[in-house]
C-alpha cells in the first residue's frame, strides 16, 4: 500500500494523515485512516453518506480534533498561517443573506489575511470572470441559487489558496457552470494548487482526479491512483460492438448482453487475453468490429460493489493485485 512511502517526506505531501480516529460518543466516525495527498494533484474523497468524509475534512481543517492519529497540512501542523493558505468549500455552505456580494467577499478575504485593497481587486476580477460583475452591490438573497454557488466558489479561491478542499463542488450547477468550475479547477491544478474533492459524481472523479480515497463506515476501503483502482476491478473480458457471432470466437467463454443493446461483453476463458481475442477478430472476415475495449468497470460500479459488499475485502483485493505487480 502507498501509505508509507519511504522515499517521500512529509513535506512532499500537501496532506499527510496517519491513523486518525474520531469518535462521537459510542459512534466511531473515522477509524484508523491513513492517506496522503500529493502536492499539485486532484485527490478525490469518496464514500456513501455518513461514511466519515466530512469528519476527515474537518479534522484536516482543525475544526474537529482527532482522538488519535496525526495530521500534517502543507508540510506541518495546521497553524493560522497555514489556514490562510487553504480554501474550503463545505457541502453545507451558505452566505450572509442580507449582505452585498462584494462586502461579504471582502470580509471573507480579510479573514484569510488579505488586505482590503487586495481582496477588493481580486474579488472584482473573479466576479467579472464568473459573469457576476453586475451583481457586486446585490444582496445575496437577490441572487439565484446558481449565482450564490458561484459566489461561494469565488469566496473559496479568493485568497489564491495552495490547497483547495471542496465538498460537492458541482452540486446544483447547470452544465455550463459545471464546465466553468471544472476549467477553473484544471487551471488551478496547472498553477500547482492541490485540490481535494469530495463528491458523489463518479464520472467527474474518473475524468478529473489523479488519485482517490474511498471511505466506508469510517474505514478506508480503496486508495490509490484512479486508473489503477479501475484496472484492479477489471474482469478478464472485453466490450465489443459490431457484427458477427461472438459465441464462436475462440477464447470466449460466455457472451453477456451489453448495456446499450448494441454492445456485447465477452467473458474470456482462462489463458486468453484481450490481445489474443483482438488478433483473432482482426484476422477473421466474418466479423466487423466497430468498437473494442477492455471491460474496465466504471467508478460508479466499483463504488456500488465496494460499498454494497465487503469494503475491507475490496481493499485486500486491491492490495493483493498491487503487491503482485
Amino acid at each position, binding site marked *: 500500500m502507498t501509505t508509507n512511502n519511504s522515499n517521500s517526506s512529509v513535506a512532499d505531501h500537501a496532506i499527510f494523515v496517519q491513523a486518525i480516529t474520531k469518535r462521537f*460518543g459510542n459512534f466511531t466516525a473515522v477509524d484508523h485512516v491513513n492517506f496522503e495527498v500529493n502536492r499539485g494533484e486532484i485527490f478525490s474523497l469518496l*464514500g456513501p453518506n455518513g461514511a466519515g468524509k466530512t469528519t476527515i475534512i474537518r479534522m484536516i481543517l482543525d475544526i474537529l480534533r482527532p482522538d488519535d492519529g496525526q495530521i500534517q497540512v502543507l508540510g506541518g501542523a495546521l497553524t493560522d498561517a497555514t489556514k490562510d493558505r487553504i480554501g474550503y468549500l463545505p457541502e453545507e455552505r*451558505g452566505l450572509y443573506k442580507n449582505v452585498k456580494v462584494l462586502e461579504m467577499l471582502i470580509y471573507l478575504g480579510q479573514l*484569510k489575511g488579505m488586505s482590503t485593497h487586495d481582496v477588493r481587486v481580486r474579488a472584482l476580477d473573479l466576479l467579472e470572470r464568473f459573469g457576476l460583475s453586475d451583481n457586486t452591490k446585490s444582496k445575496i438573497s437577490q441572487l439565484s441559487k446558481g449565482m450564490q454557488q458561484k459566489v461561494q466558489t469565488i469566496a473559496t479561491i479568493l485568497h489564491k489558496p495552495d490547497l483547495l478542499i471542496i465538498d460537492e463542488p458541482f452540486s446544483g450547477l447547470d452544465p455550463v457552470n459545471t464546465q466553468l468550475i471544472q476549467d477553473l479547477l484544471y487551471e488551478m491544478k496547472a498553477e500547482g494548487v492541490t485540490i481535494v474533492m469530495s463528491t458523489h459524481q463518479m464520472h467527474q472523479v474518473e475524468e478529473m482526479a489523479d488519485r482517490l480515497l474511498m471511505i466506508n463506515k469510517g474505514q478506508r476501503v480503496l486508495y490509490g491512483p484512479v486508473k489503477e483502482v479501475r484496472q484492479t476491478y477489471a474482469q478478464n473480458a472485453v466490450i465489443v460492438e459490431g457484427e458477427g457471432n461472438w459465441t464462436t470466437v475462440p477464447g470466449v467463454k460466455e457472451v453477456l448482453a451489453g448495456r446499450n443493446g448494441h454492445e456485447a461483453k465477452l467473458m474470456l476463458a482462462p489463458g486468453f487475453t484481450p490481445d489474443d481475442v483482438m488478433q483473432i477478430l482482426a484476422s477473421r472476415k466474418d466479423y466487423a468490429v466497430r468498437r473494442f475495449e477492455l471491460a474496465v468497470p466504471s467508478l460508479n460500479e466499483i463504488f456500488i460493489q465496494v460499498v454494497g459488499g465487503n469494503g475491507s475485502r475490496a481493499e485486500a483485493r486491491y492490495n493483493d493485485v498491487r503487491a503482485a505487480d
Partner: protein
Amino acid sequence: MNLAKALIVARREYRVNFRSPGFLFMAFAFPLIILGIMFFITQFIIERETSTDDFQKVGYVDNADIVQPGVETPEGYFALDVPEVEAVPYIEQQLKDGVADAIFVIDANYTLTGQVDVYSQKNVTEALKEDIDRFLSDHLVAQADDLQVPAERLVEPMDVVFRTLDTDERQSEAALIGRFLLPTIFVFVFFIATSTTSQFMMGGVVEEKENRLMEILASSVRPLELLVGKLLGLSGLAFTQIAFWVLTGAVIALTTEQGRDFFSGAEFQTSDILLMIVLFVLDFVLMSAIMLGVGAAVTAEAESRQAGGFIGLIAVLPIAANALFFTNPNGPIPVILSFFPMTSPVAIIMRIGLTSVPTWQIAVSMVILIASTVGVLWLAAVVFRLGMLMYGKVLTPKLLWQSLRENQNTPVMTPLSE
C-alpha cells in the same frame, strides 16, 4: 488567539448591526421616547412646584437679625424662638407637632454667605422657595444701608439648603428629584442597551448557523476569535448607543432650563458612577454570553427568540417589581434580586437611587456577578464550539453535559450528516 482576526470580526459585527433597522430604531427613536417621558415628568413637577398649598404655616429663625418689624410679612409666616442648644431637634419636633409646615433658619453670617436652611417634612416646592426669596429680599432692601448688604445678596438673596427630617442629609431640591428619577431612567437605558445588543449577538449566531456559514468561518478563524470578535463588536455598538443617548441628554440639559434643573439634581458620587459602569460592562458580557450560548445551541431563529424572551423576562424582574423597590428598597425581594447575577446590576442601581445600599451587599453582589460572568463566558465558549456545527440539531443540556464529561472539543453526537 489571533487578535487581528477577532478585530476583523468585531468590525464587521459593529458595521452590519449599526446599519440594521433594529439598532437605528433603538438608537434614534428611543431618545425621543425618553424625551417625551421627561417632558411629562417635568410638567408634573412644575405643576407641583407652583403651589404653596402644603405650606400654610412657615416659621423662621432669624439668626442674622435682618427681619424688620415694619416690612410686610406673607400670610402664615411667623418668627420662631429656637434654643441655642439642640436647635435642630427642636425644629424637627415643631414640624412633627404641626406647629409649622416648614421652618427656615437664616444663618448668622447670612449677609455674607446667603445661607438659609429650610426644614420640612414635605418636598419644598419652587413656589415656597420663591416666597422665602421675596421675604428675604424685602427685608434686605428695607435696611440695605444699615447692614451694608453686598450687592450680590440683593440679586441672589439666598443659597438655600433643604434638610429632610429623616436623615438630616443635605439635599438640594433638584437632587431629591434626580436621585429618584435618574437611576430609573438609567436602569431603563441600561436594560434596553444590554438586551438589544445581546439579542443582536444571538441573532447573528443563529443566522450564521441557519445560513450554514459557520463551517466556512471556522475554516478561517478559531471559535474563540469569533466569539471575542462578536463580543467586542457588539460591546462597541452598545457603547455607541449609550454614548448617543448621553449626548442627547447632555444637549437637552444644556439647551433647556427645565432640562438643566432636572439634570443638576444628579448628585451621584463618582463611586456610584464607576459602580454603574462596572455593573453595565459585567451585565453586558453576562447577557451577551448567555445569548451567544443560546444562539449556538438552538437550531432556528424562532427557538432563539423564545429562549431570548425568557431570559429577558428574568432580567426585567427588578423593573417589573419596582413597587417593592420604592416601598422598601432594603426589603427581602430587592436584596435577593441584588444577589442574583442576571438581575443584580439593575437591582443595585435602582436601590442606589432610593436608599443607601450597604457596602457588603454591593461587594457580595459584585463577587457573585463576576464569578457568574466568568463561568457563563467559559460555558458559552464551550457551547459555541460544540453547537456551531450542529445544523438542525439542538444542543440540549443533557448532550452538553455528556459532551463535557467526555471531551470538551466534540459533541457526543455526529455534528452533521456526511
